[in-house]
């Protein structure tokens, strides 16, 4: 691939038949959630039907009060359905055999809420660390050895533990033990007002502060029956794309670091710095902290500021293009990428992979195609020509999305940014679901509320969804390639651990 938007785009709305399972209620055009309380007997059959009709698994959480477990399903067109099943005798039926992406959700619910999942065996611990035997998969054989890495890593990396099972240098299996950084943010947020709850979501992750914040704001606004005005949609979309810009530039730098290409790493680190300075110029904060709140937006940028930001981004784009071309024509760099850390289409679908990693595997799915509360008119996800699901494809995907984001930003910066609000326009409800395409993929925030306070908060970020894919990408590769594979996903630990 050279430069520019050479990837093909695909429409995905036509897939599946959402109406066969559930029709969104009035207000579906701005994304309200259908809540279906089902019995223990019908929970699995309803889920099977929905998955067969093209709906995707979107997360499982324990409802406020702990007497129900709810599983989220999303249709390609953006409709959302929450299937609630009562907890009986401390247990509910598992769905992990129907939707393997439910694995972490169920393990987390077991550790944090003491819920049992009938049929999920062995139910390994996830948040609870306990003994080695409780969370590792037993691997046996001759010439086998284990390499334990972390929680403290050699570079400037977040804390988490990886246990590799190897024969020689080749990885047979990887157990990732995260949640060293679990701060109990979701539980701590319970009881706070909807406004105040935003602080807990923001603290979950600095790299996805805007994406998580907007997902939370959307969920709360659904609870309150509020709909963003066009000005609010535009302001939030601008913030989301600015976050994606620095994040993708950082990812390219990280992939260069993963193969030890110092020149590429340094150059893209410089671009990342410039993108963060743009953020500071526009919002007063390099990571856009404090720019998203429930019910409105206070970001102000007059014509002069907007023009200055646009000019800075134009200049950045020219240099990023040149830096990208260097990478594409650097043979020793390119040589390391193909075939490393493959997550192919079928695996990605099964594991529930999201974001650039899913698109690099050929799944043209992007929440931005169905984000009626944001400003993405006519958005089409882009996928690389060779969607091979390896490190090369994930790098190429970042490039394609960078040009797309530069284009979106250029369009969004054609007018001043003014304070904006969300207004009454949809029926209020007890549960809100916000979905946003973060730089790492679909991020879902579920807020259960009594109308004023948060009674339950669940944040299922793109990183959380993709960690099992990182573990699945490792087997068959050499141990020395793992840093590169890991960097090609560049997931947050903070987002997953919360």
């Amino acid at each position: 691939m050279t430069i520019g938007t050479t990837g093909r785009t695909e429409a995905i709305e036509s897939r599946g038949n959402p109406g066969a399972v559930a029709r969104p209620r009035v207000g579906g055009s701005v994304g309200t959630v259908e809540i279906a309380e089902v019995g223990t007997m019908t929970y699995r059959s309803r889920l099977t039907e929905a998955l067969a009709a093209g709906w995707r698994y979107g997360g499982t959480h324990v409802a406020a009060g702990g007497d129900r477990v709810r599983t989220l399903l999303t249709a390609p067109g953006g409709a959302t359905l929450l299937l609630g099943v009562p907890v009986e005798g401390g247990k509910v039926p598992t769905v992990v055999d129907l939707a393997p992406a439910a694995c972490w959700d169920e393990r987390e619910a077991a550790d944090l809420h003491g819920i049992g999942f009938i049929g999920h065996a062995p139910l390994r611990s996830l948040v609870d660390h306990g003994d080695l035997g409780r969370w590792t998969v037993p691997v046996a054989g001759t010439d086998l050895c284990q390499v334990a890495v972390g929680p403290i890593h050699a570079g400037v990396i977040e804390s988490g533990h990886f246990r590799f099972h190897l024969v020689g240098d080749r990885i047979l299996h990887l157990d990732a033990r995260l949640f060293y950084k679990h701060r109990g943010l979701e539980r701590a947020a319970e009881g706070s007002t909807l406004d105040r709850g935003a602080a807990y979501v923001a603290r979950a992750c600095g790299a996805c502060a805007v994406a998580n914040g907007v997902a939370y704001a959307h969920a709360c606004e659904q609870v309150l029956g509020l709909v963003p005005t066009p000005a609010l949609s535009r302001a939030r979309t601008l913030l989301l794309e600015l976050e994606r810009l620095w994040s993708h530039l950082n990812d390219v730098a990280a992939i260069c670091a993963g193969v030890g290409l110092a020149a590429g790493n340094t150059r893209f680190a410089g671009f990342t710095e410039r993108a963060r300075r743009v953020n500071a110029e526009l919002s007063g904060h390099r990571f856009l902290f404090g720019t998203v709140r429930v019910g409105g937006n206070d970001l102000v940028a007059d014509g002069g500021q907007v023009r200055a930001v646009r000019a800075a981004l134009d200049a950045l784009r020219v240099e990023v293009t040149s830096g990208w071309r260097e990478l594409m024509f650097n043979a020793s760099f390119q040589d390391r990428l193909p075939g490393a850390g493959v997550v192919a289409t079928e695996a990605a679908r099964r594991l529930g992979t999201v974001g650039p990693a899913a698109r690099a595997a050929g799944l043209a799915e992007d929440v931005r195609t169905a984000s009626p509360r944001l400003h993405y008119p006519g958005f089409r996800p882009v996928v690389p020509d060779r969607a091979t699901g390896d490190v090369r494809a994930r790098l190429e995907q970042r490039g394609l999305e960078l040009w797309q984001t530069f284009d979106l930003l250029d369009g969004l910066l054609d007018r001043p940014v003014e304070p904006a609000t969300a207004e009454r326009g949809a029926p209020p409800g007890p549960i809100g679901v916000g979905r946003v395409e973060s730089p790492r993929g679909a991020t879902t925030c579920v807020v259960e509320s009594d109308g004023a306070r948060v009674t339950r908060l669940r944040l299922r970020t793109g990183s959380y969804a993709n960690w099992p894919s990182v573990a699945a990408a490792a087997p068959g590769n050499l141990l020395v390639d793992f840093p590169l594979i890991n960097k090609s996903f560049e997931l947050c630990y903070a987002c997953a651990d919360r």
Partner: protein
Amino acid sequence: MFALLRDLRHLRRSLALPPPDRGRSLAVRHVDAGSCNGCEHELTLTASPFCDLARFGLGIVASPRHADVLLVSGAVTRRMREPLLTAYAAMPEPRRVAALGDCALGREVLGMPDDLAGPVEDLLPVDLRIPGCPPPPDAIAEALLGLVDGRQGPTLIR
């Protein structure tokens, strides 16, 4: 590749970074004790061409056994308490501890008390405080350079 190096040289010149004027060095080991990842992202950019901390003899080393300074970010979680103390115990003396960011300083920490082990100060003797949420790369650099010079680190309130 040559074009890339040439561009980097241009960038270096255009930024007019002061020449290295210190004859000493400082080896830093970073420990994320439960951050939001913001502090890590800023620390990473101390190596960008805009800051290039390495030219002052400051480097991130892979092991606490090679480190002069333990740079800790994040509110210390219950699960990171042991690894943090182990890393500190592995350091040779003399050793210093720097707390990076408001969380590490115990400011406005959010979470469940059960899951948190308290600010760094409650667990280790903190020599250098780098406030900010997150502190930008230049502030991190300036604070760490204070240690190279043997000064008590400046308090950077921005």
